């Protein structure tokens, strides 16, 4: 199994990628962020319609950039869970039709398993280190996962309410910074004082769990009490202080979990891993704790088909196959 095609349509990015073994030969992501920005969030039916329009051109572009014809593809990896069902079924239909037409195998991949592998896309020569700890911080998830081996995952902790990315998006909406909120808050925070406002941190001591809804409410209360319109400096201070509250919790809990589990490698994956403050602070903390930290470049933090292709490549190589009966699921646990 040499050439593998990855397909990802679980939310609002239409994406296809070509891998040769572990080497990414192309990774195309058509983001719909601009489309959904006008509604302030992802509209599921609009997302699914966009996938139908863009899937084939995106697929062809991925092949062109990899420099191979479709006929060379030997296997297909497609996200089939979890996500927006109407969006997932589009990529899944495409993958099944390709498997049928080319008479090649395909596997369904858990979206979060893709995120787990995203940390290893840029170092194809390096064996995946096991066990390692992964912190998934994305739009829908905040999880600490101990990765014992390929396909062997142990969920250590998760968020009890909002995901980290969701908190970024909700606070950004509250501050009218547009969608998606994470990158906007990251930008504003750079000019703000992270100690200007004292927002609560939910430590949930003795567990590896997270909670961000209290923080979100605290930001709301603070904003309500401030005179309007907010000055640019106040806005920047709010962003920096909110971001610092999220980052502190993520950093400390991830390092503690790594120490408690005795692992020497930590990966930070998912859209929020692109956050500049999180990157700086987690690198520092890991350096002090003697833990190696791996963070994918921004293009592999947010949704992309390359990570799905890599996760699928390992499955296909192990001989795993799915059949036409594979269905899409809105929610599904990773472990």
């Amino acid at each position, binding site marked *: 199994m040499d050439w593998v095609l990855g397909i990802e349509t679980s939310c609002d990015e239409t994406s296809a990628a070509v891998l040769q073994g572990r080497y990414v030969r192309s990774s195309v992501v058509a983001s719909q962020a601009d489309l959904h920005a006008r509604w302030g969030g992802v509209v599921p039916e609009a997302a699914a*319609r966009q996938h139908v329009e863009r899937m084939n051109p995106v697929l062809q572009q991925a092949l062109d950039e990899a420099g191979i014809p479709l006929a060379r593809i030997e296997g297909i990896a497609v996200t089939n869970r979890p996500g927006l069902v109407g969006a997932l079924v589009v990529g899944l239909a495409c993958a099944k039709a390709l498997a049928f037409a080319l008479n090649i195998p395909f596997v369904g991949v858990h979206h979060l398993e893709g995120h787990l592998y995203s940390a290893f896309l840029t170092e194809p020569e390096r064996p995946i280190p096991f066990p390692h700890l992964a912190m998934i911080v994305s739009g829908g998830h905040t999880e600490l996962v101990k990765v014992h081996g390929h396909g062997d995952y142990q969920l250590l902790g998760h968020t009890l309410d909002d995901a980290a990315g969701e908190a970024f998006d909700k606070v950004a909406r509250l501050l009218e910074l547009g969608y998606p909120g994470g990158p906007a808050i990251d930008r504003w925070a750079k000019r703000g004082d992270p100690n200007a406002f004292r927002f609560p941190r939910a430590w949930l001591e003795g567990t590896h769990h997270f909670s961000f809804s209290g923080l979100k409410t605290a930001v709301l209360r603070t904003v309500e009490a401030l005179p309007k319109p907010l000055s640019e400096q106040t806005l920047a201070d709010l962003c920096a202080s909110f971001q610092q509250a999220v980052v502190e919790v993520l950093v400390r809990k991830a390092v503690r979990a790594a120490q408690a589990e005795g692992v020497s490698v930590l990966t930070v994956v998912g859209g929020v891993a692109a956050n500049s403050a999180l990157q700086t602070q987690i690198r520092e903390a890991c350096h002090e704790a003697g833990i190696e930290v791996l963070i994918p470049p921004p293009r592999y933090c947010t949704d992309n088909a390359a990570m799905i292709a890599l996760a699928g490549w390992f499955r296909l190589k192990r001989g795993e196959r799915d059949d036409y009966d594979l269905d899409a699921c809105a929610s599904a646990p990773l472990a």
Partner: protein
Amino acid sequence: MYLLALESTANLAGVALVHSGKLMGAVQIAHGQNLSGNLLHATEWLLNRHGLSREAIRAVAVDVGPGAFTGLKIGVMIAKTLAHALNLDLVGVSAFEACACVMPEGTPTLVALPARRDALYVQWLLPKPIPEPLSQPAMVLQHALSAWLEQTTPAREGCQAIGSPRARGWLEPLMPALRWRMIEAPPPEGVAQVGWVRWQAGERTSPFQMVPFYLQPPSITPPGTRARTP
């Protein structure tokens, strides 16, 4: 010269195969959950029954709607991808055309298919190898059907209709003279026949361009935001 026809806009999905203008076979399946899988299973079954490999197919026709949003997307996605991967000619057929084409020729025909819970997809056509539109396709709310009929009905007498039981239940009291044919879903053989004639006439759609004919915008509840940038 085989053409494969796919129909997936309602609860019964269908696949049909045409060879030199002759319908070789058609299957309909109650698909429940796994629509894409069932379309491919049915296609495989039909090909096997005729001892054909997938390379025998030269063109694919698909019902592009209107109909169930998800079914529409899956059918169009499969048709486009088969065309893309196997280098097939791709032809779109509307759900109205697929229905009208299986009715007796020369008689004005009302096609009425279920839309949202309170509405129908409707169009008047004249059945022919490629049915001729006698009105615009529309989604019409139940309470507006009588006004719509008022404006569009081509003749008071001698018309026929094809559609779902719900459509008949709503329309029969408004227009008792219609002769009805009841269907649960657009017939795959209709997609195949219109698709074949289109294909023979040289019509093709690029798999990079084909989009479903939704006839309704996506439903949106806007949170409403203005963006501020630093």
